């Protein structure tokens, strides 16, 4: 049976250079990252090239992407959240495209690597932290002091708030990583059943129909998960950014 972990292996394509002793390589993961960037660029730049008053299908896709993210952002932060629009749009489109490309058989899913999702989550976390301090100064720390809490349990609440704030990038990144990883392993395991069962002859081939149907259904589910996880990541980003703009709960 095919190894379900094999699809996550990083393969070096060529070496870019070294930082200290660490080799920096252009890998299959890098290729798929740039592929995602290329797909998004083609969608957004190609789709908006015509500047049609009445959009064609291609332009509709670009506009739909724009408006979807813009509405998500506005509904959770409001009009002033639009300053983060390029960041949130890039995050959503990058994760969505990477997830979607990953569903195509024989491809690599960049978002199934914890280091990638951690980097993206930390980008959001640091943006929230730095912009929150820059915009609100020390008032930003009111985030940890909810209103209407009796003074004697305030220290406890503050500790909990600080821990929950600091654990945000963990849950933010692990959620995306784990969903992509688990989904792809499951797909691979069921798809592997199909090949190993059909190798057993006619009876096996007939029995392979069940995991084949399962794989088909799971692929549909994975499409949903790919979109949903990109959306969840974006929504959480919006909620965290809202804290940077309005820390006083």
């Amino acid at each position, binding site marked *: 049976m095919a*190894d379900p*972990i*094999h699809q*996550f*292996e*990083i393969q*070096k394509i060529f070496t*870019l250079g070294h*930082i200290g002793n*660490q*080799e*920096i*390589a*252009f*890998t299959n*993961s*890098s290729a798929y*990252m*740039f592929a*995602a*960037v290329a797909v*998004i*660029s083609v969608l*957004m*730049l190609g*789709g*908006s090239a015509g*500047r*049609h*008053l009445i*959009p064609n299908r291609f*332009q509709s896709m*670009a*506009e739909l992407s*724009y*408006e979807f993210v813009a509405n998500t952002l506005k509904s959770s932060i409001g009009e002033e959240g639009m300053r983060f*629009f*390029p*960041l949130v*749009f*890039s995050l959503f*489109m*990058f994760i969505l495209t990477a997830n979607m490309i990953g569903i195509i058989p024989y491809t690599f899913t*960049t978002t*199934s*690597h*914890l*280091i*990638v999702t951690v*980097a*993206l989550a930390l*980008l959001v976390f640091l943006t929230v932290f730095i912009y929150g301090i820059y915009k609100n100064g020390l008032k930003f720390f009111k985030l940890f002091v909810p209103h209407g809490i009796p003074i004697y349990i305030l220290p406890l609440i503050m500790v909990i708030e600080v821990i929950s704030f600091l654990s945000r990038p963990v849950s933010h990144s692990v959620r995306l*990583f784990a969903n992509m*990883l688990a989904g792809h392993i499951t797909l691979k395991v069921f798809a592997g059943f199909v090949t190993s069962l059909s190798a057993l002859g006619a009876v096996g081939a007939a029995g392979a129909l069940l995991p084949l149907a399962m794989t088909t259904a799971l692929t549909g589910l994975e499409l949903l998960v790919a979109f949903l996880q990109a959306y969840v990541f974006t929504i959480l980003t919006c909620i965290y950014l809202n804290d940077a703009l309005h820390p006083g709960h």
Partner: protein
Amino acid sequence: MAEGQSKSAAHATGAHTAADGGHKAAFPPFESSTFASQLVSLAIAFGLLYLIVSRLALPRVGGILAARKQVLDNDLAEAAKLKADSDAALKAYETELANARAKAQTMASEVREKLNADQDAAKARLEESLNAKLASAEQTIAATRTAAMSNVRGIASDTASAIVERLTGITPDASAVNAALDASLKG
């Protein structure tokens, strides 16, 4: 040198086992030696994406949407203006129509009143003349009757005198005949 050899040997075995089934190799997402490469790639790719999105894509799509909104707003405003115009025209037309109708009604009732008055006057005149004629006819009748009645008396007295004369051969006294006539007329 020896360390390098052992490292490459370890790498070779790692690659070998990975090809066999990969059970001894680290789980790829936790293979820390690949982290730096991925981070560098991600930084370049995501930075590039951010630049493309923020400098080119979003302003362009946003511009298209804003331009469309502008066109739609203009068209809607124009349509609202045209609708207001047509409403005003309709209202003016209805007012005009109502005025014309009221005017026609006034004219009709004026004409009707005038005709009624004329008719009444003509009727009154006719009645007056008829009444006058009736009165004069009655006068004529009364005069005629008086004349006739006086003639009757004359005839009666003549006849009575003639009868008396024929019967008696005496011409009666006129006053006696008159008295007798008066008596019989009264009776």
